[in-house]
Each structure stands twice: as C-alpha cells, then as structure tokens.
C-alpha cells in the first residue's frame, strides 16, 4: 500500500451518541483475493458518513458484511450492538440497494412498494394499521412522490423509482439508513429531494446515515465525515480535511473520482 495510514478524526456526533455500526479490524477475502483488510469504522446516531472508493475497493462487500449478508473473515462487526445476523429488530435498519432490477411484468404502485418497508415493524403476518398507512404516506411525501403514489413504478423515471426505494427504507422509520450508490444516474430534481429527505431523517429523527456513492456533489454540504476505502480505510475525516488535501466534494464534481482513480 502506498497510501498514508488514515488519520482517524473524531466523529462530529457527540461521543455519547449510540454507535449504530462498529467494525474493528475487519478483513474479508473471496478465496485468496483480499477485499477488505483491517477496516475499522463506526457510524453513530445523528451522523452522516459518506463511504467512497474506486471501483473494486470493497465498498459493497463492506456493506454486505455490515448488514450480515456476508460473514467477516476476521475482525469484529456490530450492527446495533449485536452481531449483524443476530439483530432481531431489523426494521431499525433501512436499506436502499443499488438500483435493483426488480421491474418485472406485474405492475406495482409506488404505494405498494413503499408499504413493504413497514412489514417488519408490524409483523409481516399482520395487516397494516392506520399509523402504518400514515408512515407510508409520510415517507412517500418526504421524497416528493405524493402525486405519483398510485402510479405503477415502471411508468416513472429512474430517479423517481429510486426515490420510491428510498421511501421504502424511510417507511420503517429506521435509526440507521444504509444506501448503496442510490443516486447514480439520477436527475437533478431527484438528487435535491434525496438530499432534503436525508437531512430530514438525520435532523428530525436523529438517524445515522451511511452512504456509498461516487456522486457526492448533491450532498456535499451536509456530509460530516468521509471515509475513503481502498481495501483499507485510507482516509477518515471531515470534508474540510479532505479539502486541505486538495480534494473537494462539491465544487468540482470530478475532483473526487479523479482522486480516487489516483489511489488505485
């Protein structure tokens, strides 16, 4: 590794804020291919953390380990204070996958998709109550899709569809929101809505957000911490710290990706 070791700056969230995600010396390999090495990372309640890195840097793998879809090779990972696979109240974690290829033959409305986000909380075998419907409506409103709530998803633009998936995560009123490249190729209006709804979730509900994205321009002004991953954590600090190294998140959209390429 030619990169400097990461300066581990203290998070801006108060020290006593609940730790939602904690990874300690996490390593993972696919066969003999190391994908993650000694990754240490935490996300606290009320914190907005952006996770960036070049393609193949292990970002998606790290998310899968954190969410319990993969077992770490070594090291420890905790989600809501437990081993990820033992987390019972999973509704406390909202997840927005990379644009899923779910658009199949059968039409499904925005409302039907978003209502799924409420299932785990209620108990999947129970019907949704008035408060569930209110939460679904609120989630749809917060991403600006209220007028399209009854429209089939496959009639919407990609940006609008992605906002529906974000609303599905919001509907569960999560304490931790994990987003995997949610705004790749999304229009400006959707990006603005996206930013506003994340800010709302953090400020009003005190949730923690872990965002994996190449395109941070839309959220540059609200990000508190940037973690740069390239198999290891090569940077962990505030955007201004990153700026002092000559990399800005917002003004020159290309800065970050270029810098990431240099790291390769």
């Amino acid at each position, binding site marked *: 590794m030619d990169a400097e070791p990461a300066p581990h700056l203290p998070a801006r969230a108060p020290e006593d804020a609940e730790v939602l995600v904690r990874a300690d010396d996490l390593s993972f390999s696919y066969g003999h291919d190391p994908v993650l090495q000694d990754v240490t990372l935490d996300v606290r309640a009320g914190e907005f953390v952006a996770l960036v890195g070049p393609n193949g840097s292990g970002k998606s793998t790290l998310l899968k380990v954190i*969410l*319990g*879809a993969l077992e770490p090779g070594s090291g420890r990972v905790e989600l809501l204070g437990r081993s990820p696979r033992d*987390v*019972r109240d*999973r*509704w406390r*974690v909202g*997840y927005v*996958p990379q644009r*899923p290829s*779910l658009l*199949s*033959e*059968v*039409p*499904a*409305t925005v*409302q*039907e*998709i978003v*209502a*799924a*986000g409420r*299932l*785990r909380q209620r108990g*999947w*075998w129970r*019907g*949704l109550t008035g408060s569930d419907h209110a939460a679904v409506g609120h989630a749809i409103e917060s991403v600006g899709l209220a007028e399209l709530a*009854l*429209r*089939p998803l496959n*009639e919407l633009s990609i940006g609008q569809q992605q906002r529906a*998936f974000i609303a*599905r995560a919001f509907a*569960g009123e999560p304490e931790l929101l994990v987003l995997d490249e949610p705004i790749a190729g999304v229009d400006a209006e959707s990006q603005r809505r996206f930013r506003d709804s994340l800010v709302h979730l953090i400020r009003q509900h005190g949730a923690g957000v872990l965002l994996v994205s190449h395109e941070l321009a839309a959220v540059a002004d609200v990000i508190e911490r940037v973690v740069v991953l390239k198999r290891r954590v090569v940077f962990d600090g505030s955007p201004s710290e990153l700026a002092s190294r000559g990399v800005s998140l917002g003004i020159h959209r290309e800065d970050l990706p270029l810098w990431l390429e240099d790291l390769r």
Partner: protein
Amino acid sequence: MIAALSLPYPFETAEAQRALIACLAVGVFAPMIGAFLVQKRLSLVGDGIAHVAFAGVGAGLLIQVWPVWTALVFAVIGAVGVEVLRLKRKAAGDLALALFFYVGIAMGAVFASRAGDVELETLSYLFGDPYAVTWVGVVTIVVLGAAVVAAIGLAGRALFAVVTDEDWSRVAGLPVGPLSVALAALTAGVIVAGMKIVGILLIAAMMVLPVASAQLMARSFRGTLRLAIAIGAVSSLIGLTLARPLDIAPGGAIVFVAAAVFAAVALAKRTAPRALQQEAH
C-alpha cells in the same frame, strides 16, 4: 349423492355441475398463486412442478394408491427441493431445473408403463377430465384452494415483498426462506388440485395466462391479482360451456379461452389510441 340443480344445458347434470365447480375453483386459485410466480419471474416453474407431479401419478398407479396423494407428495418435494436449491444458489440456472423436471416426466412414464394397462387413466391426468371428478375430488380442490386463499390473506404482503425484491427482503429481515418454500408448496398444491381438471400439461397455463392478461390492464399488484382471478374464472366458465356442445377437451377449451383473452387484450392495448398512454406521463 347430491341431486343436480336445475341449471340449463350444458350444466343440467350432476357431473357437469361438479365439473363446473371444479373448473371455477381452478380458474380462481391458479391465477392467485400465478401472480406471485410471474412477479418472481418463474412463470414456467409451474410447468416443471407439473412434470414432477406426473412422476407421482405414475407411482400411485404402480402401487395402487389414489394418484392424487402420490402426486401431491412428489410435487411438494420437487417444488420445495427446487426452491431450496435456488435459495442456496446451488442450482446452476435453469439447466439444473430442466434436469429435475425431465427426470420427473421420465419417471412418470416408466412407473405408469410398469403399472400395466393404465393408458386411459394416465391420459386423464395429462389432459384432465373434469366430468369424471367426484364430490370428494371437488371438496379436495376447494379445501386446497381455501388454503391458498388463507395463506395469501395472511402472508400476501410479505410474499409480494419477497417475490418483488428478494435481496432487499432479506436485509429487511423478512423470513425469505420460509415464505419462498411456502409459496413453492402452495404452487405444488394448486397444480395437483388442478391436474385432474385441466390436466398436468395445461394446469400451469392457468397460473400464468390470466396474470399475463391482467398485468396488461391493471396498474397495481392488487389490481392485477383481482383481475387475474376474474379472467381465470370467466375463462373456465366459457371454456367449459363450449366444451360439451363442441365435443372438445374441457382443459384445452379453457386454456384456449384464456389465451384468446390475452390475445384480445394485447391487441386492444396495441391499437388503443396513443393518447391514452401518453396521458399517463
């Protein structure tokens, strides 16, 4: 024996009325399950499970047990087995499934041939014979159908989430494995319930064709489900009504009507004024 109601031709006899109830039940229940299978992009899995059910029919004929029971055992084991392989991502795409299903039909053929002179009976399972259905058969179908309705009433929302976005459902903590296995078992149940009515070769069509028509018209999953049930029931009614006067196989007639509905809907949608579709955007 329950006396025949006074219905007009072609439903004036008790056997025709049993056939009518059985066909309507299949027309309602098959698309209910089918909507979830189509959404899961497993439109053809019903056909595969039906092939495995045929092995069960052969086995029943061979050991002289009512073939519906043996078919149910084979179909449930086959459907659940395939689903478990898929969930564990062990099955290498549809090739593994194809092998599974062809072995099923080969077993059925071998068993049936060993069972002796049962060609006519075998044919009635392959192509269906609703006029031969007994009251026990009708009750069996209705009970299996009620199980489907109950399961969807209880778990429909969660099943919808799972078949729509399996990876997300897993992260969200929904019981993806048990729900998927339950859907597979219900699929097997509906196939076995319907095989004596529309036939092993055609029952899967009743799971898929009404849904295919409905999804062209509906604008929600719930709407698709309701419309598919209506189309399934109407296709059954029209198909069975035509079968006797025209002296054609009822199973074939029903599926033909369902296919004709799809063709008509698809055509109407194509030639519908563009303005209607533009308006949606």
